[in-house]
């Protein structure tokens, strides 16, 4: 089984009738994800894709016994939706939405943590458990093949790029996790490394990092101490000028902290090879 999600994962989509929500819920169903319900303030009582019951609130959706949620509501309402999920006892919380104020993310994270809830995002592509056919999020389903490579990334499209390259190299993936591009996201590399290290399905690990913060450096130190499995990496933002936010709110070099050089150096020192181009990542794998 994959990490964080498996065949028993029952997903509710908060905001299933919105533009994003409905498109990705459809893709998730096509991938095999068990979506048990969706919420919509205006379309309660209908069925999504002639199949998934749509109700007006998460409380009502609890009758379908979801244990995971995908939140796809506008940024100002994300905190309320997340608190609703935390209060209802959901166990995995994935926030698709971009531009969530990080103070809201901070409140969500600490409340999720105290309840033992796994939080993914905001502003990440979600999680794909390849073997368990459970995708929560927006990764394009057709790039995956079942295999032993686990991937964790702060970026969305770049993850697809690398997963695609891994698949095309003849390998396959176990679990692929997008951490999210915001300064505050639910999972750090270390949280997922812990899971990957003990996951029997995973034999090799790819970390995709970018400029900003020091989570890659912390991950490198953790790998040195605790990770026996092979880890390779790719870091983006080598050519980014300091002081500029490169699209992601989290991707900024401030006062010399968060450079690609520092991250690449930390990984190299931990024995983690870093690819020059996304497409070279598979060359570093076994």
């Amino acid at each position, binding site marked *: 089984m994959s990490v964080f999600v498996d065949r028993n994962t029952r997903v509710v989509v908060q905001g299933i009738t919105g*533009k*994003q929500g409905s*498109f990705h819920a459809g*893709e998730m169903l096509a991938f095999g994800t068990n979506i048990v319900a969706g919420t919509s303030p205006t379309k309660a009582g209908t069925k999504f894709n002639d199949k998934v019951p749509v109700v007006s609130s998460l409380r009502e959706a609890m009758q379908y016994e979801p244990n995971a949620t995908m939140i796809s509501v506008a*940024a*100002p309402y994300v905190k309320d939706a997340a608190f609703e999920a935390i209060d209802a006892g959901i166990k995995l919380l994935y926030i698709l939405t*971009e*531009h*969530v*104020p*990080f*103070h809201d*993310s*901070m*409140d969500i*994270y*600490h*409340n999720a943590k*105290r309840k033992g809830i796994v939080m993914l995002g905001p502003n990440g*592509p979600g999680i794909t458990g390849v073997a368990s056919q459970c995708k929560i999020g*927006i*990764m*394009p389903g*057709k*790039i995956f093949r079942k295999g032993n490579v686990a991937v964790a990334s*702060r*970026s*969305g*499209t*770049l993850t*697809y*790029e690398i997963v*695609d390259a891994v698949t095309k190299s003849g390998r396959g993936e176990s679990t692929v996790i997008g951490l999210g*591009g915001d*300064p*505050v996201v639910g999972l750090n590399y270390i949280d997922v490394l812990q899971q990957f290290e003990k996951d029997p399905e995973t034999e090799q690990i790819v970390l*995709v990092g*970018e*400029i900003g*913060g*020091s*989570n890659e450096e*912390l991950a490198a130190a953790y790998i040195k101490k605790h990770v026996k499995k092979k880890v390779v990496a790719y870091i*983006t*933002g*080598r*050519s*980014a*000028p300091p*002081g500029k936010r*490169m*699209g*992601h*709110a*989290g*991707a900024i070099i401030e006062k010399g902290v968060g450079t690609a050089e520092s991250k690449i150096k930390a990984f190299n020192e931990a024995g983690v090879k870093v690819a*020059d*181009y*996304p*497409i070279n990542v598979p060359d570093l794998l076994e």
Partner: protein
Amino acid sequence: MNLYEYMGKDVFRKHGIPVPDGYVVEQESDIRPFQKPVVIKSQILLGGRGKSGGIKFAKSEQELKDGVKQLLGSKIRDLAVTKVLVEEMLDIKKEMYVSIALDRTSKSPILICSAEGGVEIESVDHDKIFTRIIDPLLGYSQFIGRDAVNFMKLDPEIGKQFISILAKLYEIFNQEDCELVEINPLMIVGNGKLVAADSKMVIDSDSLFRHREFEVIDPEKTPLELEANSKGYSFIELDGNIGVIANGAGLTMATLDALTLHKGKPRNFLDLGGTDNSETVAASFEFIMKAKPKSILVNIFGGITKCDTVANGIAMAKTRFDIRQPIVVRLSGIRDEEGRKILKDAGIDSFPSMMEAVERVVKITGGN
């Protein structure tokens, strides 16, 4: 988003943190009658204003008028001074440092303070800096202030004021959605009172929907960047000659990195974000065209943004902006085959592989 000093001080005042008496001057007629010695501070977002001549002192009506006249409209390290802050001169006894910022790793506020301030905190000895991660569910509580005061060895009366300022600073950090709120220097003045002699506040720009009062023009951005941002594009000007459009911040950065490693020179960073609208794609070319690149690279891996949507957008843009420069497109992911067909019909080359597209565009563009 950075706030100007005077805006930060308005926030301080609102929350009860003592600031010097002062007022903002945008034109000479704003100058109030001279009463006591003042300092005239250019309102620009730049450290070390003083050394660059951005701060003047005035001990008379005439000096005040002259100082304002010199600063207003001047440029300091390329930044135009459109406002100055006229403030009472303080009787400095000591300068301290205090800030609250986001600590990304713990996903919590972090308090940093030191009895030594007035210089960049990075230059202060590590063993003279007090740092404490604040558990956001507990919030700020007095014991944190007491620990800081003990560390800094402040005398009790100063310590009491310091603790009271900390509580307000934490309130500001949360209520105003700060990434950083910093007082440097926090001054002890002649009468033993603490005064925030400067302010630095960085506001989370994603929170502006609940802080309309803070919408200011970011002076660190170029006019073209501001224009593109106002249309919803994440856009940064660079100094090369290859226009770049990609989807996703990570992929856009990786595209720049790949171009650079191939000796190509990107002209810009343009992230379409999570759009799935052909018009949004087409309209993005306006800013690429204004940047006058020699060639254009579009790099799309389809997720939220579907490849056929992008292809349609590129075709629309080619006609709308009468684009003569070569466009190299890479499409992969959701609906890539459909997208490539659309581009082929519009006479635009496309590749499934990012590396091929990068190589091609660098080759076409040539050395410069």
